[in-house]
């Protein structure tokens, strides 16, 4: 009702074709409107993403410590920070550990989630609902809450894991302080990250599996193909794009483990769980060397961008819209 009465004048203003209307069937309302509508989003991205990134690049080429943070008189030092960083053996240990952490996590996540996805596909209605619900619940668990719970599960004195292991006959786990030993702390963090990441990967792979037409399986079976053969020649080619997408996402998301690591160990004991983002923040905010921290962050971004490019190529091949 009021709809009709609502401003009819602007229509007259926007409607007259300024140029030959072209082949558009629909009124396109070209002109300033679309730009006004996306302006807030663009401004937000410029100020909250592009500007911080540029600022990080800038700082990584400057001499930027506590003094410069307060007085703001930083000056450029060229590649000094990068030279310092790359000649530090501790930095290289951290890089190696980051890759180890990534490889272990991603391998476990991909293998387990593929198995779970294949399993869910073969389950009956009840089993499928049960497993999917459990996966969704795990997925929904907030990171910090899950990290706290894992600290409790692996608690040295009253933790259920130590109790179970001791009960199974591994008496050396009686009161074992997991977070005091480097490899043990590393293992717990891997377990935590894998536990939190499998649901998303498994559900996504499962929904990709459901897109494989049943006739293809039938045809392959009639042709006498074995189970593994069907998986290799029918399932895999169809699921591969999604598989690669999930794989690259999981690689990129390895760096998100920053939160679990920071909450649980802060990179300790010693340096045993320090990966690149943790190292960068430690250097910058604990050591007041913002320049070195920014340089380490930029190295991280550089390492990630390789995977990112692969991810985007895969995604746009999938989408070919945009």
């Amino acid at each position: 009702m009021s709809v009709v009465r609502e401003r009819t004048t602007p229509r007259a203003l926007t409607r007259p074709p300024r140029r030959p209307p072209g082949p558009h069937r629909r009124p396109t309302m070209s002109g300033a409107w679309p730009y006004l509508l996306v302006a807030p989003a663009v401004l937000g991205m410029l100020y909250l993403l592009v500007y911080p990134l540029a600022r990080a690049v800038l700082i990584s080429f400057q001499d930027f410590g506590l003094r410069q943070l307060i007085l703001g008189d930083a000056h450029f030092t060229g590649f000094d920070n990068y030279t310092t960083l790359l000649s530090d053996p501790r930095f290289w240990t951290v890089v190696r550990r980051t890759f180890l952490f990534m490889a272990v996590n991603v391998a476990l996540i991909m293998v387990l989630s593929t198995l779970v996805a294949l399993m869910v596909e073969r389950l009956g209605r009840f089993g499928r609902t049960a497993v999917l619900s459990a996966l969704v619940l795990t997925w929904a668990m907030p990171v910090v809450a899950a990290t706290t719970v894992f600290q409790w599960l692996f608690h040295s004195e009253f933790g259920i894991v130590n109790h179970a292991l001791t009960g199974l006959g591994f008496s050396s786990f009686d009161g074992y302080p997991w977070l005091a030993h480097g490899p043990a702390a590393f293992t717990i963090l891997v377990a935590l990250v894998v536990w939190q990441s499998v649901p998303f990967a498994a559900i996504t792979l499962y929904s990709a599996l459901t897109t494989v037409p049943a006739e293809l399986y039938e045809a392959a079976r009639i042709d006498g193909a074995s189970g593994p053969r069907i998986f290799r020649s029918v399932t895999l080619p169809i699921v591969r794009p999604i598989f690669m997408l999930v794989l690259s996402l999981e690689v990129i998301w390895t760096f998100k483990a920053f939160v679990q690591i920071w909450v649980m160990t802060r990179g300790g004991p010693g340096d045993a769980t320090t990966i690149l983002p943790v190292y960068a923040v430690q250097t910058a905010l604990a050591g007041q060397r913002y320049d070195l921290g920014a340089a380490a962050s930029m190295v991280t971004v550089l390492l990630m961008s390789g995977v990112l490019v692969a991810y985007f190529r895969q995604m746009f091949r999938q989408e070919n819209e945009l």
Partner: protein
Amino acid sequence: MTSRAALRRLPLNAAATVTVALCLFPVYWMVATAFKPSRDIQSENPQLLPRSWTLDHFRRAIDADGFGLFWRNSVLVTLGAVALALLVALGASFAVARMRWRGRRQFMLMVFVAQMAPWESLIIPVYIISRDTGMLDRLPTLTLVYFMMTLPFTIVVLRGFIATIPAELEESAQVDGCTRLGAFRHVAFPLLAPGLMATSLFGYITAWNEFAYANFLIIKEQDHRTLPVWLSSFHNTFGTDWGATMAASTLFALPALAVFLLLQRHVTSGFAAGAVKG
């Protein structure tokens, strides 16, 4: 015959049972510990099923210093970020889905890249920028950061939702004398409500859970902390009181778990694909 089939399915069902158990046990153990009396928590022989129940831990968690305040902060920041993201994304996705303009492809590309922004590597510059502009220790800073974290996803999903609404509906409203935006507001917007719900709930979960920025941007002003940071420092609040810690974790996780269970159908069907796409 059927028994043999059942036998053959045994490994599969066993694997399914193990999967469900592994997924649920940590969540179950959190809730179980939260309800157990302290003497059962600190016992030599932990029981899988609590023998008696108590609400003491929840009482201690709620009475803990600042719990109400941090809860309020979290809610404020989350709602602010989601509302802002929805408002901005609605305009942007309308422009992308319904209008032709130069730079549209580039804009969407920017959105997709922004979605994969390396937030973990931007903590240092964001900290320095907030410090320079006097935005450190302030909740609006967090709101802005969370807004940016959820915006790209919101735009992508809303664009999808808007594209499914036939443009003819709006066109006929325009024929009846509506303006372009009026037609959108009165015709498409009501149809968009479910999409807005789903999108905002996902943004809400992101903002509710965020830890890193809340930890490093709110330093001196302890009254402006949010729940994840508070929970992460449970040792300061509860010491070795694991019952209260688990009760606090439960209270913190509950809203997120509830939202996910409500959205489960979306999550397990189309939404997983949507989340991959962006």
